[in-house]
């Protein structure tokens, strides 16, 4: 890969993708195409397969049929997907700084320094506090800071707004906006509205 190709346009595509757990197909014939700098909102009722689709895109579940392609990503730069699920992966006995440093260590591709990331999500003053003392919303902010300390082009966010207050939701919108402006891709499953203009919407139907 030459250097020029690193900046070649990213594009996340799925072809006739079928997702589900075990043998049970939740959604099929999903054809997505999200290019660099764009975000996609996944909508659909509970049980339509939004979370499963995100897990499948991340590679945590294998597709039941069809395929997923990420064009323009150089494998040498490490994994392409950040997945931010329902569970925050935060241990009560580690401080916010230790948690972030751990994530940065295993995820590689260091981007923002830990202190700056904490500043960005508004946890600077709680940096040395045990995560056990963080509220649910603060834990969610810490989980979002994980997306900042390691650079990965595609963010897969599963209900990122849960437990966030109004200010936190604004913060989240800002983070996604910056990520997209930097040429990233975001796929977000949420029932809440996220204050961003250029979000396409994809709706999953139950029992499709």
């Amino acid at each position: 890969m030459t250097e020029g190709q690193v900046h070649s346009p990213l594009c996340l595509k799925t072809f006739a993708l079928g997702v589900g757990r075990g043998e049970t197909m939740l959604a099929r014939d999903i054809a997505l195409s999200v290019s660099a700098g764009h975000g996609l909102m996944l909508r659909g009722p509970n049980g339509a397969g939004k979370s499963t689709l995100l897990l499948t895109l991340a590679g945590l579940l294998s597709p039941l049929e069809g395929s997923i392609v990420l064009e323009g990503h150089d494998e040498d730069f490490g994994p392409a997907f950040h997945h931010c699920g329902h569970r925050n992966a935060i241990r009560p006995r580690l401080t916010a700084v230790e948690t972030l440093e751990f994530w940065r260590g295993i995820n590689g591709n260091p981007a923002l320094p830990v202190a700056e990331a904490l500043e960005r999500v508004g946890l600077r003053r709680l940096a040395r506090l045990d995560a056990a003392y963080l509220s649910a919303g603060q834990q969610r902010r810490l989980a979002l800071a994980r997306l900042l300390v390691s650079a990965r082009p595609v963010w897969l966010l599963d209900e990122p707004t849960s437990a966030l207050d109004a200010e936190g939701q604004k913060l989240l919108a800002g983070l996604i906006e910056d990520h997209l402006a930097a040429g990233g891709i975001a796929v977000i499953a949420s029932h809440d509205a996220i204050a961003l203009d250029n979000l396409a919407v994809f709706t999953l139907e139950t029992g499709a």
Partner: protein
Amino acid sequence: MNGFWSVLSREIRLSLRGGGEILTLVLFFVIVGAVVPFAVGPDKALLARIAPGIVWIAAFLAMLLGLEKLFGPDRADGTLALYRLADIPLSAVVAAKVIAHWLTAALPLILASPVLALLLAMDATSFWRTVLSLLLGTPALAGFGAIGAAVTVATRRGGLLAPILIAPLSVPVLIFGVGAIAPTGGPDQAQAAILLLAALSLMVVVLSPFAAALAIDWGED
């Protein structure tokens, strides 16, 4: 490599801050060893003869106790999913965890073994042999433990299942471990047992991270 150290230091930090987890484990080890005389009687000659077996059984049980902590909490809080998306292979994560498990669940027991040696009337030679055999054999137990914990992590009732699965696999570790201390067939056999134990540990420690990583990856998929 960076990620490997991150996992290792996190595991050790979590154990050290675990509210006396290590101390509990050491207490369990000493107490299991110390209740045996109540069951078999305070005959010093008999105790000295069976002491190597008692120490090994106590260490074996204590290490089984810590297994649930190996992958269970990580799966519950979502860290396991992050490991699968990490920049380092899952087998490296498991290797770091095996090492951390040994450092926090086996090394403290070995350090506490003089207490048992004293209680069980071991002489100096067999005490040093016990330390050596525990040092050589417990890595294999940690490796088997990782496999047991990995294959049961996706099940709901993993708790008791992992020990049941790995106890039969650990039979050679116990045989060679005790054989290295109390040679029934003379010093040559003890020498052979030590070498076999070391070979077994080496093999298990090298191979178990791959097997465990495979089991985790496919169990979660």
